[in-house]
């Protein structure tokens, strides 16, 4: 096993990986940007080193600085988490050059799956079904011409994509030039590469993905599917395992196809093969392979009982996998809600600020993966996801009820979060029936649907008035205690408020 592991990431995922290392008895090293000095991942690690200023290109994306720290701290392995350098083949290669194990797939597998166009060509040769899409390296005019040949609607995707960045659904031909420009800008900003391609958009499809694990001894298994159709702007917001749309024989078939896709690139470590699933005819199409741990891995962990991060570490250390395919029997139902610092009542605009209060839900079947603490600063530098709330239930109905309960218990002060959005989804009949697809949130017309309960508004108004009244009474009390009994008590109340910054 490894002597010491560096976690090249921040936020909840860095904490998650540190915990796995700790449970394996491996000392840990954190890296952090200047604004993250007090972050949980810094405090939970055994050692921590600053790698630069807040913008990620100057810190968490600096391969040279991270390798320097790894050498200085004497680590023999690096876990990249998700995002940042997790799917960067150059980083995996730099680790190898420095004699450090990259806890993830080989650089060649990252490279071939990382370029979405090359990935499509590679897996197609292994019999994996594909959505019709454009060849690589086309200019805008060529993409526009190509889109006409496959017909609208189409989907623009960043070749180096992920996380919904650089993706645009285009309904009409005249929208395409502007959408291409926007997708290229976003891709360049997120990935440093503005290459995009076009795929046929399959309406009413579900997003189903298969988690796989592969060791370096030629063993490869799948851990069943995750349903990730609840997306906003192609970013997943709610994930669950299993999927209501997938029956056992289809699960095994998609599992075999996912394994074939992984074998096509000699894959080792944890990975996920994403499919679009058309429930009208039970057909599925390869979307892409994520060559890393994913945000939604806890739902699979809940239903399979496997600690995917610990397994990743063991595989990277050259161990043989402890599980065979026949050992994997999903049990119960798990749901994850991504808690983001965004205002669901205002178009999901990012909400920055200091977390002034925090009370996370607990209780049976509840797991919170979080980087939050009281005093935590949500800045504009990083992704708005600040925590994940994951629940397990024996049935899907129990999991939904448990999620409702846990969301009701969650208190985060100082920033706006996506919690009310998740509450409204847990109450939505289409979600409860499980008949949704990737177009679900667009149909909801979020801003119109997200209406606050009038009763709650009234309760909030009364509570505020009572607190204001109490503050006034305290001011009166202070006034009475003073010698000058004729002092204007309302002025006193005003002073209290002034001191508090209210006036």
């Amino acid at each position: 096993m490894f002597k010491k592991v560096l976690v090249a990431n921040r936020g909840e995922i860095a904490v998650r990986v540190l915990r796995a290392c700790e449970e394996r008895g491996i000392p840990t090293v954190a890296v952090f940007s200047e604004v993250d000095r007090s972050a949980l991942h810094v405090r939970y690690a055994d050692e921590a080193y600053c790698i630069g200023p807040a913008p990620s290109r100057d810190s968490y994306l600096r391969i040279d600085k991270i390798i320097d720290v790894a050498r200085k701290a004497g680590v023999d392995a690096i876990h990249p988490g998700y995002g940042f350098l997790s799917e960067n083949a150059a980083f995996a290669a730099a680790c190898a050059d420095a004699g450090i194990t990259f806890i993830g797939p080989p650089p060649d597998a990252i490279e071939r799956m990382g370029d979405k166009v090359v990935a499509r060509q590679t897996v197609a040769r292994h019999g994996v079904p594909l959505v019709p899409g454009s060849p690589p390296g086309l200019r805008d005019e060529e993409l526009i011409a190509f889109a006409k040949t496959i017909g609208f609607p189409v989907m623009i995707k960043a070749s180096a994509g992920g996380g919904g960045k650089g993706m645009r659904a285009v309904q009409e031909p005249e929208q395409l030039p502007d959408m291409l420009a926007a997708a290229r800008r976003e891709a360049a900003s997120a990935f440093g590469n503005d290459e995009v391609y076009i795929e046929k958009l399959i309406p009413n499809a579900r997003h189903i993905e298969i988690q796989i694990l592969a060791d370096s001894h030629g063993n490869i298994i799948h851990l069943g599917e995750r349903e990730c159709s609840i997306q906003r702007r192609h970013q997943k917001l709610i994930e669950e395992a299993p999927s209501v749309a997938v029956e056992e024989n289809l699960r095994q078939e998609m599992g075999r196809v996912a394994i074939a896709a992984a074998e096509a690139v000699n894959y080792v470590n944890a990975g996920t093969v994403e499919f679009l699933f058309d429930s009208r005819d039970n057909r599925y199409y390869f979307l892409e392979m994520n060559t890393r741990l994913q945000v939604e891995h806890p739902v699979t962990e809940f239903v399979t009982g496997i600690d995917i991060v610990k397994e990743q570490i063991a595989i990277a250390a050259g161990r043989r996998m402890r599980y065979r395919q026949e050992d994997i029997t999903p049990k119960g139902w798990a749901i994850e809600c991504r808690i983001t610092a965004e205002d669901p009542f205002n178009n999901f605009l990012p909400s920055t600020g200091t977390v002034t209060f925090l009370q996370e839900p607990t209780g049976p079947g509840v797991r919170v993966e979080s980087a939050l603490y009281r005093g935590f600063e949500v800045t504009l530098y990083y992704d708005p996801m600040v925590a994940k709330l994951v629940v397990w239930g024996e049935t899907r109905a129990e999991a939904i009820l448990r999620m409702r309960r846990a969301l009701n218990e969650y208190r985060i002060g100082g920033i706006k979060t996506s919690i009310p959005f998740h509450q409204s989804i847990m109450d939505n009949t289409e979600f409860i029936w499980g008949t949704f697809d990737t177009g679900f949130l667009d149909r909801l017309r979020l801003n119109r649907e997200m209406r606050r309960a009038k009763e709650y508004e009234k309760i909030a108004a009364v509570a505020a008035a009572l607190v204001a009244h109490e503050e006034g009474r305290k001011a009166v009390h202070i006034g009475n205690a003073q010698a000058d009994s004729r002092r204007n008590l309302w002025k006193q109340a005003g002073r209290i408020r002034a001191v508090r910054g209210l006036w």
Partner: protein
Amino acid sequence: MKYYARVGQTEYEIEIDGDAVYVDGERLEVDLRQSGVPELYSMLFNARSYELLIEPERFNYRISLRGEHFDVQVEDERTRRLNAGRKTLALPEGELAVTAPIPGLVVKVLVAPGDAIEEEQPLVILEAMKMENEIRAVRSGVVKKVEVAPGQRVEQNGLLLTLE
């Protein structure tokens, strides 16, 4: 003592008389207690139990209730009288300043002076947290002046454009 609590577009008249609380004239059974943590309260509202996070902010209270946030502006009778005397408007009547709700980089301005716009129409694209965010019109109107250009950084509450 009478208070006026405004949440969004709705105003509630709340009278507190000893233990009695009247909301718009209707008597309610209300009991509010601190939980031991300064901002966390337990409220019994007509015997229904709620946990509330109440944080004082400038001129208002931010209240979190079952995951939902409410910004409540409270005035007592006297303050209301005083404020009525000193209210001034930053802009001439009928004009609306569209400001940046978050700091960010202006990627694109989607409207020009003279454009007639609808409620909910995207006006400006602002990049923050690595995503492009659409700033939309809160009401319909005509663009009077555009104050920003693509590539420009804006601070929170920075003026983007004015509508009339």
